[in-house]
């Protein structure tokens, strides 16, 4: 069996919602059935085989080739299997994803991993704003799983995040971890202003001392044994995070304007 491959025929003029094309929704369907699936694009609906050349038969491992940033909701709500994207992805990559794996060889737009519950997303390029954040009107962002970003992330990464792990090897924009409820975000690069703004609980792990606002307070330098467990859990990740091997940190706690039980740990 070869991977079920969707090759974008021509660069899309309008954004296309790819949420029907997940391994669990396509399981057991023939290529003809799959080709007839209608995809929402703006005000119109397009047949899948109008948009993509379809080949292969293993719906458990889906590949999108020639993909670009007009393709939204890739892996939305997926419950199993693996999606590999070559090119780029639009907004809402892995939206409310339940399980499985998404590998993106390229950049993603805003709201990647929004409402994600479990599974693994590896974005090998950069990602836009609101990574792992709550959808409009929702009060909780990402609820579980792991997101690994090899490049940079935009603003508001982890906004209202409830649980799970986001690891960013590059830089993040402003308001990272704003209104964060719990979970863990690790950042190896630079952080923007207002890091942890309104953060309620949760852990931020950074390598460089950030500029912090007044309601995040220094709690001193500590050797924390739980970091051993955390770094052990990173060991299998294809990432620079798997190399971290020290548990001495400067601990800042906040945001005191919003309960103040969150923490920003700066590796020493």
């Amino acid at each position, binding site marked *: 069996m070869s991977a079920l491959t969707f090759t974008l025929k021509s660069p899309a003029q309008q954004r296309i919602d790819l949420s029907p094309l997940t391994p669990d929704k396509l399981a057991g369907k023939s290529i003809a059935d799959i080709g007839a699936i209608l995809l929402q694009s703006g005000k119109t609906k397009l047949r899948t085989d109008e948009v993509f050349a379809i080949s292969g038969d293993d719906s458990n491992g889906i590949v999108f080739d020639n993909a670009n940033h007009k393709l939204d909701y890739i892996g939305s709500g997926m419950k199993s299997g693996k999606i590999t994207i070559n090119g780029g992805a639009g907004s809402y990559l892995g939206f409310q994803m339940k399980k499985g794996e998404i590998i993106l060889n390229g950049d993603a737009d805003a709201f990647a991993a929004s409402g994600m519950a479990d599974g693994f997303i590896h974005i090998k390029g950069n990602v836009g704003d609101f990574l792992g954040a709550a959808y409009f009107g929702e009060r909780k962002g990402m609820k579980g799983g792991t997101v690994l970003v090899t490049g940079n992330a935009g603003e508001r990464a982890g906004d209202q995040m409830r*649980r799970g792990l986001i690891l960013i090897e590059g830089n993040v924009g402003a308001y990272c971890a704003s209104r964060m409820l*719990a979970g*863990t975000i690790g950042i190896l690069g630079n952080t923007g202003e207002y890091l942890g703004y309104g953060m309620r*609980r949760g*852990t931020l792990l950074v390598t460089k001392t950030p500029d912090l606002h007044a309601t995040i307070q220094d709690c001193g330098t*500590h*050797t*924390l*044994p*739980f970091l*051993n*467990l*955390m770094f*052990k*859990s990173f060991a299998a990740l294809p990432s620079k995070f798997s190399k971290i091997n020290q548990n001495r940190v400067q601990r800042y706690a906040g945001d005191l304007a919003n309960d103040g*039980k969150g*923490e920003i740990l700066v590796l020493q």
Partner: protein
Amino acid sequence: MIINGVTIDDTFAEAFGMRGTRVIITAQNLKWAYNAANAMTGFATSVIACGVEAGIEREMSANETPDGRPGVSILMFAMGSAVLMKQLETRLGQCVLTCPTAAAFSGIDSGYPEITKINLGKNLRFFGDGFQISKKFGGKRFWRVPVMDGEFLTEESTGMIRSVGGGNFLILAESQPQALAACEAAIEAMKKIPNVIMPFPGGVVRSGSKVGSKYKTLIASTNDAFCPTLKGITNTQLSPEIESVMEIVIDGLTELDIRKATRAGIAAACALGAENGIKRVSAGNYGGKLGPYHFKLRDIMSDESLNDIAPGVTA
């Protein structure tokens, strides 16, 4: 059956179903892991008055433990799950939460047919008064509780399984020092067996009991048939040359673990042999009607397959 001049009685040890759990205690170094573990397994020789029977199973090197620090594993057994859960929580709270640098982790996650999750640090977290922090790694939840030395780290739960308690054998010798020397040799050998503990002081118990008493309020009393000073006035089980009897009690996670430990212990005692005053090995039972597990000494001593203690280790 006679091994090296030591008679193995044609009898069996009678054991009971218990609930067992394992906890891994780590600390800055082994000294402090032992301080916590010794406290947690203190006053835990017999369920009759201690609630649980507990002991240190073995030392663990830094690369075996979850947090990469040296530690020890503890086994804890009780007659019912409610008692075990209560004792685990109170002992963890008073002995590990309090011990500098110590942390506690689950010791049973897989490998047994039926594993019940029981609370480890789940309720102790409230000591943190709202400052406690939950972290989930690899599907397991951990709690970080701020304490005066830094943070107390504990896993939320550990596994409880159906296990076996009360395996035993008796060593009958010509003198008290010889009986004790044989027991020490047996315990030394049995400590190498995984999944078992010998809960009494130094692993050895001298006050074996029988069911009932002349005093109506007592449910158990001294086993006069094996008391050497009563040889002439009671229905004794001892021949004239026996001057001292000691017992080793074994609790194990499975029946097989106890069989292996019994074999290793008796073999070590018999290695001293008749020339060192070791005359007989027997076992305690209640006629076979009370406990579902019967450990027949002669069967165990003739079963070579029990020498495989664990991968790469033989008796």
